[in-house]
């Protein structure tokens, strides 16, 4: 809004004000004046009427006492006295006189009677003098007329009019005649003399106005307007007042004469201060409003401008973010390729003739290179997650196998550190889940990797439960927490893991699990399809300093620079884990107490592969599906001697996976009685290292007793196993070993490894010569036995070696030398359980062949549940890019060439 408009507004305001003032103010004034004027006129009239009435009364009095009585009861003196006393009754009159009708015939007698002659007043009319000045005697006697109206009585104030003939005055004569005719009082022109009384309009009005307060403000003029053109002013000075006046008509009871009262204000109307004030006020308000409006408009304009700037900045920021992610992705990828070369060359360098120092240098360089590649992979993951490109797979997997696998990855490290490592998977977790095993593994590996980095004593304990299971146990556990804080895996105190997931939405009562709490068994179908897992990784390490805890999930954030110097790493792992957990519809949380340890907990949602078998009442059924490598243990019974319930439970879990019944006791004495009195024959006794070493005499006593009992009863004593944390820490006591040498089982316990140990010791399965790597070989033997595997490789030597390896493990192997042959072999229906595929082959490479095979599988089985043959790539490429490439082309995993038993086992175990 600009100023001209505002000016217009002001002008308009003024004009309006003027109009308003005119209409309202003058209208009001007019009204006031009219009412004042009317009021005055009415009062004047009233007063006049009152006087008139009295005069009439007086004339009646005279007629009564003068004419009706002879001799008259009234003389001049009485009349004067009476009238004087009653003067207040006639405020309008200055005096009262009474004239009587005298005919010519009676004049003489009358004059005689009165003692004076009738005098005329014509002359008086022509030379008006003041009343007091003329004397009646000086007047001429009235000429002869037909009749006369001489004043006989008069008030003292006008006693000079006595004897004057009223009919002699021209005006008066008419009036008198008229009055006689009408029988009423008449008004005369304002003469000094009047029949019956003299009215003083001037004093009347004066008196009247005195009674009214507003005498000063209003000017009153009274005019006799009988003659319209020449009104006779009766009262009031001709003072210039307001040009405006109001006219009220007066009626003095005489129809022949007209009177008007003109009223006007003495002062000109005052300046309309109110109006001025109001208009100024309105002007100011208008100005203010205008200003506010202007300011508002300006502000809106500013804000809009800012908004546009913001939008621009936001766009730029987003673009920068995208660019950053793209940059990271591109750069990481570009770095990986040459790193491949560097690592390869490094490998070659290692194999040349180097002295010890040089070898050390090369090894360091190689380690650094590998670390760099893993960091790049992490950064790439982060970039992918940020740009939303990371998608999870949905494939069938066995979570227990994954955990075994992860365990084997960390077992060496944990054994080296003397830290106890254990995994426990709840029985209620289904065997087969559908989800992304690789990413799940990545999360677990990351958490465990962190734990193992910061833990030098105690334990690392991974537990996997169903969320609802934990949910139900919350209350129970809460009660028992205070009693045994020492009830942990290694006896070291731990941070209370429950606090780490207290904030999880899944546990709030409004959360999706609300239904579980009410109806566990009759839960809806959705709870069967989706498996909500809660995984916690508990350690007894350094813990996270309190001040670092809030930013632990921030990318590249580490506890402190000294930490990264000591332990390495990018600090990106937890951030990635959090993202991955988010992608799995889960939540991650932790609780950590410095010097005590940390517990990380996350939830993840997977799909149940066989929903029908997952109802809680079928738990037994799941238990009855033993580890495939261990069917020969089915029906056996084991005794675990372990004073710590948690650890015993972990042992029970692993042994039970082999199909073995497990009984737990806390010390050797109870163990002995369990073996002796138990209804079931115990086939094996597993003793914790600390129990075994606590008292060697007790141990040997136990061993001897067991042997004796066995000899008496059945002849086969139960086998003894000692569970140890690291093989080096176990000092076999010669005393016992010579009698009954127990087998040492090194933790962490894994089903496959345990199976191998048991097989070896108990003589179940085929007896192999005890060579290194036998454990894996044995377990693989059963893992692969009866499986048919296709090997595709153009290199005959490779083919032979691979075939030899797999055959050795009991698999039926068929070899082909090209992708095309592989496709023909693998066109459904076929009887292969897995396929190992070389990637680099002439004519058709592994990727293409896999694609074709997958295509065939899908087209053939699109109606039923599709068959998915595990295809594993064989490649010499160590870099992850190749792995991803493999997955992209529909492969399920990869083994690096040349084969290594452990790796082969790891990959194959995922699928069987």
């Amino acid at each position, binding site marked *: 809004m600009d100023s001209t408009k505002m000016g217009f507004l002001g002008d308009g305001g003024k004009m309006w004000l003027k109009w308003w003032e005119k209409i309202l103010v003058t209208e009001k004034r007019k009204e006031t004046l009219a009412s004042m004027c009317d009021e005055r006129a009415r009062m004047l009239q009233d007063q006049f009427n009152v006087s008139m009435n009295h005069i009439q009364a007086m004339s009646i009095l005279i007629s009564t006492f003068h004419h009706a009585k002879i001799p008259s009861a009234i003389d001049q003196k009485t009349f004067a006295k009476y009238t004087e006393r009653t003067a207040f009754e006639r405020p309008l009159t200055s005096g009262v006189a009474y004239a009587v009708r005298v005919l010519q015939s009676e004049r003489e007698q009358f004059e005689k009677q009165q003692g004076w002659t009738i005098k005329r007043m014509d002359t008086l009319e022509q030379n008006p003098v003041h009343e007091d000045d003329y004397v009646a005697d000086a007047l001429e006697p009235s000429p002869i007329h037909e009749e006369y109206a001489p004043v006989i009585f008069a008030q003292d104030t006008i006693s000079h009019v006595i004897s004057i003939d009223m009919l002699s005055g021209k005006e008066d004569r008419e009036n008198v005649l008229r009055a006689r005719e009408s029988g009423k009082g008449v008004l005369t022109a304002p003469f000094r003399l009047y029949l019956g009384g003299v009215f003083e309009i001037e004093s009347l009005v004066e008196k009247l106005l005195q009674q009214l307060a507003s005498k000063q403000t209003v000017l009153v003029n009274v005019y006799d307007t009988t003659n319209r053109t020449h009104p006779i002013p009766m009262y009031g000075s001709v003072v210039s007042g307001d040009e405006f006046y109001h006219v009220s008509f007066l009626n003095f009871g005489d129809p022949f004469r007209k009177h008007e009262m003109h009223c006007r204000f003495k002062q000109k109307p005052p300046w309309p201060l109110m109006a001025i004030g109001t208009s100024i006020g309105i002007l100011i308000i208008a100005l203010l409003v205008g200003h506010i409006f202007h300011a508002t408009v300006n502000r809106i304009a500013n804000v809009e401008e800012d908004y546009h700037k913001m939008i621009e900045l936001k766009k730029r920021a987003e673009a920068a973010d995208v660019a950053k992610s793209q940059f990271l992705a591109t750069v990481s990828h570009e770095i990986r390729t040459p790193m491949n070369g560097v690592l390869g060359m490094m490998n070659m360098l290692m194999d040349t003739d180097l002295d010890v120092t040089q070898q050390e240098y090369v090894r360091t360089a190689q380690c650094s290179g590998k670390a760099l590649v893993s960091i790049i992979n992490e950064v790439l993951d982060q970039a992918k997650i940020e740009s939303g490109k990371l998608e999870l797979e949905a494939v069938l997997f066995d979570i227990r196998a994954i955990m075994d696998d992860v365990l084997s990855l960390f077992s060496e490290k944990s054994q080296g550190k003397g830290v106890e490592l254990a995994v426990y998977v709840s029985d209620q977790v289904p065997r087969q889940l559908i989800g992304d095993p690789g990413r799940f593994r990545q999360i677990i590996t990351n958490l465990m990797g962190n734990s193992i980095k910061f833990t030098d004593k105690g334990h690392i304990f991974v537990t996997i439960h169903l969320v609802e299971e934990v949910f139900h146990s919350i209350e129970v556990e809460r009660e028992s927490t205070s009693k045994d804080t020492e009830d942990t895996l290694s006896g070291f105190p731990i941070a209370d893991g429950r606090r780490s997931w207290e904030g999880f939405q899944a546990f709030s009562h409004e959360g999706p699990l609300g239904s579980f709490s009410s109806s566990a068994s009759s839960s809806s179908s959705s709870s069967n399809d989706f498996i909500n897992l809660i995984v916690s990784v508990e350690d007894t390490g350094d813990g996270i300093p309190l001040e670092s805890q809030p930013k632990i999930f921030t990318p590249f954030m580490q506890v402190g620079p000294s930490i990264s110097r000591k332990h390495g790493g990018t600090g990106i792992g937890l951030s990635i884990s959090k993202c991955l957990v988010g992608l799995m519809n889960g939540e991650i949380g932790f609780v950590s107490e410095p010097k005590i340890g940390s517990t990380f907990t996350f939830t993840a949602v997977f799909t149940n592969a066989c929903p029908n078998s997952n109802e809680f009442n079928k738990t037994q059924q799941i238990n009855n599906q033993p580890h495939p490598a261990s069917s020969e243990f089915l029906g056996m019974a084991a005794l675990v001697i372990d004073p710590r319930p948690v650890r015993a439970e972990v042992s029970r879990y692993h042994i039970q996976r082999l199909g073995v019944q497990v009984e737990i006791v806390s010390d050797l004495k109870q163990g002995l009685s369990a073996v002796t009195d138990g209804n079931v024959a115990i086939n094996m006794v597993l003793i914790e290292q600390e129990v075994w070493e606590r008292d060697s005499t007790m141990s040997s006593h136990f061993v001897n007793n067991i042997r004796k009992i066995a000899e008496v009863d059945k002849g086969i004593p139960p086998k003894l196993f000692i569970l140890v944390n690291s093989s080096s820490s176990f000092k076999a006591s010669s005393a016992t070993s010579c009698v009954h040498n127990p087998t040492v089982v090194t933790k962490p316990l894994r089903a496959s490894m345990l199976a191998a140990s048991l097989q070896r010791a108990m003589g179940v399965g085929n007896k192999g010569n005890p060579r290194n790597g036998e454990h894996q070989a044995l377990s693989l033997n059963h893992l692969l036995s009866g499986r048919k595997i296709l090997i595709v490789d153009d*290199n005959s030597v490779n083919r032979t*070696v691979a075939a030899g390896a797999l055959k050795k493990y009991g698999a039926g192997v068929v070899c082909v030398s090209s992708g095309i042959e592989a496709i023909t072999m693998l066109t459904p229906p076929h009887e292969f359980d897995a396929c190992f595929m070389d990637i680099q082959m002439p004519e058709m490479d592994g990727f293409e062949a896999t694609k074709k095979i997958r295509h065939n599988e899908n087209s053939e089985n699109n109606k039923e549940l599709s068959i998915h043959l595990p295809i594993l790539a064989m490649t010499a490429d160590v870099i992850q890019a190749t792995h991803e490439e493999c997955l992209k082309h529909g492969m399920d995993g990869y083994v690096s060439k040349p084969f290594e038993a452990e790796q082969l086992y790891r990959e194959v175990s995922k699928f069987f």
Partner: protein
Amino acid sequence: MDQLQLQRELRDYEAAMFQQGFLDDQFSQLQKLQDDSSPDFVIEVMTMFFDDSEKLLNNMSRALEQIPVNFKQIDAYVHQQKGSSASVGAARVKNICATFRSFCEAQNRDGCVSCLQQLQKEYSQLKKNLKYLFRKQQEIKGGGGAIPTGE
């Protein structure tokens, strides 16, 4: 005691081959695969490797003589050779193959020729050593002894 002597000799010889880089861990993996069900697995595989390698080496030298040189073809041969040598744990041969391939990639004929010469030298050395090793093993076996493993 003659057996023990032989066994020790064999072990030392094998250890020396590992130490000198002729063989690597993959060879011991191979040895582990050998058991009662396939008593001559290593020798079978190695024989196959020798046949394969000789064929490939011939192909390589022939391809290098051609003009223009088909580097792609040679690279494929070398890749094959590298793969099989990796599988049997012939470390030195494998390493030369890696270098060879980079020369192929760079289309460097001279480099390829010198690599081939080196490869031939290494290969014959390996073959000679392995043949000796196998002979020793057979001797021990003939004497009824067990073959010690590479550890």
